[in-house]
């Protein structure tokens, strides 16, 4: 037995120490929620899908860097950077990002409504606005694992495999901000839209279906009508692609086959995010008992 062992009375004691404020409460809500959405403190089935999707998000970058490590610089004729441009990364794993957000965002809000936990939360130090802020943060943190972390890893690999890493950093330092900007734009978009759709129901299955329908149905309709009517702006109905196109516009040499500028895609992204915020404000702005 350790000499430090003590017998402790598990009695209720008063706490008169410092108490944290609202921001700590929001952070606590975000941290607990995001960990649970990723399957923490739950069975292996709850962990399987999020972890698999995160690994798939990293896969293109890991494969490219792995090939470079195994076979040397000659394996990519145009150079390592051209093998997997940062601007294309999100597009390549777009389906992973989409499914990941569909898996994560309903898990963040549907159980609270199903179990009627909202009244419990609102009786604590957090307000309705704080709750929404916490949940947006909770959605954003895991989504950034697939929208931001993989291209950052790729950037780090490209720099390390460069003949002169510091020279690479000097030439491509702007790419860091482009990667962060693109990752945040895509992440915030999917977080807000996913939460807004999920807030409409207490049933997780309905939220998943509704979210997929929201992203897929306008995309199909917009694509068909754009082709039939030869109206390029109908392509903006591709809600799943909106943030990806806007993010691509952050990189030089952006071109869109439909001749829609990156600014229009970005404006559409912002509009949809504002609508999503409005939905959240309506859903959580009133008394929910």
């Amino acid at each position: 037995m350790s000499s430090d062992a003590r017998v402790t009375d598990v009695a209720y004691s008063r706490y008169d120490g410092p108490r944290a404020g609202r921001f700590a409460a929001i952070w606590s809500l975000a941290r607990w929620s995001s960990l649970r959405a990723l399957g923490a403190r739950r069975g292996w089935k709850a962990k399987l899908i999020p972890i698999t999707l995160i690994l798939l998000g990293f896969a293109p970058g890991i494969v490219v860097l792995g090939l470079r490590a195994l076979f040397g610089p000659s394996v990519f004729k145009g150079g390592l950077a051209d093998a997997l441009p940062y601007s294309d990364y999100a597009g390549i794993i777009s389906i992973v990002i989409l499914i990941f957000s569909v898996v994560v965002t309903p898990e963040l809000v549907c159980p609270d409504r199903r179990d009627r936990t909202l009244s419990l939360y609102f009786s604590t130090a957090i307000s309705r606005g704080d709750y929404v802020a916490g949940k947006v943060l909770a959605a954003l943190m895991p989504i950034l694992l697939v929208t931001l972390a993989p291209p950052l890893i790729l950037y780090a690999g490209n720099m390390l495999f460069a003949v002169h890493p510091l020279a690479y950093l000097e030439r491509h330092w702007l790419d860091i901000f482009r990667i962060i900007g693109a990752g945040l734009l895509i992440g915030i978009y999917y977080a807000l839209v996913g939460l807004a759709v999920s807030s409409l129901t207490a049933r997780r299955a309905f939220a998943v279906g509704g979210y997929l329908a929201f992203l897929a149905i306008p995309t199909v309709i917009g694509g068909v009508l754009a082709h039939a009517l030869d109206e390029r702006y109908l392509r903006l109905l591709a809600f799943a692609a909106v943030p990806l196109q806007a993010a691509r516009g952050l990189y030089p040499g952006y071109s869109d086959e439909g001749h829609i500028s990156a600014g229009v895609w970005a404006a559409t992204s912002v509009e949809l995010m504002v609508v999503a915020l409005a939905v959240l404000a309506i859903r959580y702005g009133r008394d929910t008992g």
Partner: protein
Amino acid sequence: MSRNGGGEPLVEIEGVSKRYGSIVALDGVSATVRERAVGLLGANGAGKSTLMRVMLGLLPADTGTVKVLGIDASKPAWEVRRLLGYMPEHSCLPLGMTARDLVVHMGELRGLPRRVAVLRASEVLFQVGLEEERSRLIRTFSVGMKQRTNLAQAIVHSPGLVILDEPTNGLDPAGREEMLQLVRRLSSELGIAVVMSSHVLEDVARTCDSVIVLREGKVAATRAIDHSAAAVRGDMRVRIVGDPDGFARAARDHGLTVQLDGEGEDGWLVVRGGDADGVLTGVRDAAVAAGVGLRELRPAGPTLEESLIGAIG
């Protein structure tokens, strides 16, 4: 209510009204709470839950003011809420979490640093008798265990005042008994002031020091609840079939005093002499010894229920 006098009021309610459309939930409610345990008593729809939600700042009052622990409950609500505990009436626990995780989480949401929240979660789960089940998912709990988890989350952050909305709702007799004992301990042993709503008078009488009766959104009555020795003294009023003098003699032989109140068979005998069990035993034995029958037996003074029955409606 100011039975104890002195000290800052825990809650000051002044002219609070609240309407839901055409329905008046609260109509000019005024009350001051100073006691460590106060019951809000009233039938369903009397306005108890609404008043509690106004006290928590969850609902804005249409008119009037509410001060809780000296802080205006309406602004900033989060400031007062982190000093309060709240146990909602209906089931609202996240079923996919363990009791320990929930209590830690709620402690953090009410301002506790994480390390402190973890330590205190163990303390309060021990206090409510859930130390063995703390790592089980809440969905596997019985109703009673869920209610105790609900209570634990309400007191984890060492609140100055805890608001309990119908804490015995849905509990079986054993669970109700445990919950009432826990609620009484909050104010008597753990130093947490309690405002508890109930539509069961006995629950309030057993756990609170005073009661505010709400009826149709108004304060219908306020009473102190006396838990003193005099209050639990077992004075009885007895009506017998037989010789009252013989019964009185036999009762005196058992250490009781008997006073006649009224004439003939409809007259009452007021029997005094110690605690309720002692008096009841003495009355039984005296009746046997005197060979009389007992027609009616009831407490000598007006009960809390009798004094409130008109107000409760």
